[in-house]
């Protein structure tokens, strides 16, 4: 039995239908069965999965799950252990056998095969700061679902900066998955890196065609999970991937805050004796060093802790404006911002500029004594927001960061639909969503914004 349990592994990633066999490479493990646990057999999660892959081309002899297969609880139920290796036994007389009695190395990795444990996970994330920020709940979900997992990230150079705010990530590598023609040296180097790290699971949010699927395939991870193109460009990608998600449109970011909902559905799927994993809210953590650095920055600009409002979303052609790809019309020219900030009393508006060249424009329009802070990284922006009393921003990462740090915010959107997509349950998040009636952000009703802005003065008045 033990020999047959190892046999399918060598074949299954290529030929078998992943809908029926992975994510938990089911093998008959009756030799491990505990008779008392026979009753705890639960239905297979794969049959209930909504978008499971079913491709008869992959395995014509796949007739689905074996109904006579029996599972015990050992290595097949519940979540994985946080640390699979027990503490060393220094009193062992055998030296090399330092693990305690009863722990057999031979079957220790069975969890990886039967239960589908994930010890090392890699996330390839397409997009910029905004997309990476919205991926944080997914990483937290992976951490919760697979205790003890090490999560690494591959993202574009700008997107990688976001992981300054994430405590759950181990390595973050800069490699732009969106680049269609990467340098051959970079490409092969990155394949070497991810192959050498022996991932159990590799997740990708780039829409995969055959090329990207091949990239993921070469990582030799057990589970290669990716979004695929919703059109003919996906041809061939499914052969190299073990799980695929078809997004609703060509642009994943159109989904707003819940842009990764299909991946979250799949990651949090219930398993044997594991309930569905709830999606955690977006949270960011800011290091002390970063806080101190940013404090020096805004003090230099003439603002005081807890007595300023962050203004983010000034029109600029800078790459650091932290917009979402799903909402390109999300920046306001500085003269409109100047009008809005005139309505602010009692607190100081701090203008965040994404590039030094904007400083002159802001000074021209707002005045020489305006507080201007040059920030191009999400880490610094988060630290700035953390010390503020609130945020007024268009649809940029600043809005999501304000929610993550539980600061009140006013969000300006180009349309109501976008507002609902990017800020669901706005009241819970203490966010006031204002949207333009015409569908263009520049036509937004400034008077309405001015009426809302005094919200921030209340806490000061109470103090």
């Amino acid at each position: 039995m033990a020999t047959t349990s190892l046999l399918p592994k060598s074949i299954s990633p290529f030929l078998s239908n992943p809908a029926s066999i992975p994510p938990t490479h089911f093998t008959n493990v009756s030799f491990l069965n505990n008779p008392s646990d026979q009753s705890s057999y639960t239905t297979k999660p794969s049959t209930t999965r909504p978008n499971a892959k079913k491709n008869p081309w992959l395995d014509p002899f796949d007739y689905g799950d074996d109904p006579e297969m029996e599972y015990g609880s050992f290595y097949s139920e519940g979540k994985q252990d946080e640390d699979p290796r027990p503490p060393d036994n220094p009193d062992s007389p055998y030296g090399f056998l330092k693990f305690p009695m009863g722990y057999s190395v031979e079957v220790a990795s069975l969890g990886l095969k039967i239960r589908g444990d994930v010890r090392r996970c890699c996330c390839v994330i397409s997009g910029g700061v905004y997309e990476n920020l919205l991926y944080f709940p997914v990483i937290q979900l992976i951490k919760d679902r697979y205790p003890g997992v090490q999560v690494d990230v591959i993202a574009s150079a700008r997107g990688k900066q976001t992981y300054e705010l994430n405590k759950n990530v181990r390595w973050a590598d800069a490699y732009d998955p969106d680049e269609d023609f990467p340098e051959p040296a970079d490409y092969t180097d990155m394949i070497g890196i991810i192959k050498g790290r022996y991932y159990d699971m590799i997740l990708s949010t780039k829409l995969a065609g055959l090329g990207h699927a091949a990239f993921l395939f070469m990582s030799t991870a057990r589970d290669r999970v990716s979004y695929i193109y919703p059109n003919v460009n996906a041809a061939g990608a499914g052969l190299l991937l073990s799980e695929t998600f078809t997004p609703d449109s060509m642009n994943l970011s159109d989904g707003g805050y819940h842009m990764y909902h299909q991946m979250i559905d799949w990651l949090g799927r219930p398993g044997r004796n594991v309930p569905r994993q709830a999606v955690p809210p977006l949270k960011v953590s800011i290091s002390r060093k970063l806080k101190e650095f940013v404090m020096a920055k805004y003090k230099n600009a003439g603002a005081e802790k807890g007595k300023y409002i962050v203004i983010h979303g000034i029109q600029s052609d800078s790459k650091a404006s932290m917009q979402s790809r799903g909402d390109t019309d999300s920046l306001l020219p500085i003269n409109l911002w100047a009008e809005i900030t005139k309505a602010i009393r009692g607190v100081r508006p701090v203008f965040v500029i994404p590039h030094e060249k904007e400083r002159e424009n802001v000074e021209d329009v707002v005045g020489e004594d305006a507080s201007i802070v040059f920030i191009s990284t999400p880490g610094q922006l988060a630290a700035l927001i953390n010390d503020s009393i609130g945020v007024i921003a268009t649809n940029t990462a600043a809005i999501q960061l304000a929610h993550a740090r539980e600061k009140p915010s006013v969000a300006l959107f180009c349309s109501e639909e976008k507002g609902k997509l990017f800020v669901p349950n706005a009241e819970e998040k203490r966010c006031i969503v204002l949207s333009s009636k015409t569908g263009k952000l520049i036509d937004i009703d400034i008077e309405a914004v001015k009426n809302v802005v005094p919200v921030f003065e209340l806490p000061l008045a109470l103090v």
Partner: protein
Amino acid sequence: MAEAVMSFTVIKPKIHCSCIQTAKVELNPAPNSLRQCSTSGFSKGWHQMEGSCRRKRGSLSKVKAFPDLTLMAVLVEHIEGQRDLITHKSVWHLNDETIKNDPYYDSEQYRKDGGDGTGHWVYEKQEDIEESARAELWREELIEEIEQKVGGLRELEEAGKREEELVK
């Protein structure tokens, strides 16, 4: 770098002096042939010096196979209508011990990102720093959480004590 040279000259003042003298002796006959000095003249100087050392073997207590000599060439450039341009050139060697104890080789200037001074090019320095920063962040958060929990427990305990006192 400058420190290294300085320390060296302090350590071996005797040999240093002799070297300058020999170099001068060597170079003085042909001061105009500058390019020769910098190339072929150099090796000549080396031989000359070795010779001088050999002659002094009786007086010097210890001579190494490759002594830590400072080779010095004085290059004099003649330019019409101007003062002579005099350049002192030196080749110096440090032994392993000096290198190991030299603060320069432990400094950021020498061991910054990219090279670790061993000749093995080290990649992922930046990634390492970021990784450790994130690990630190994780620890900070954990400590905060624990503190909050402990604080909550303390409040509960205090509340319990107060209740007990009230009951008494």
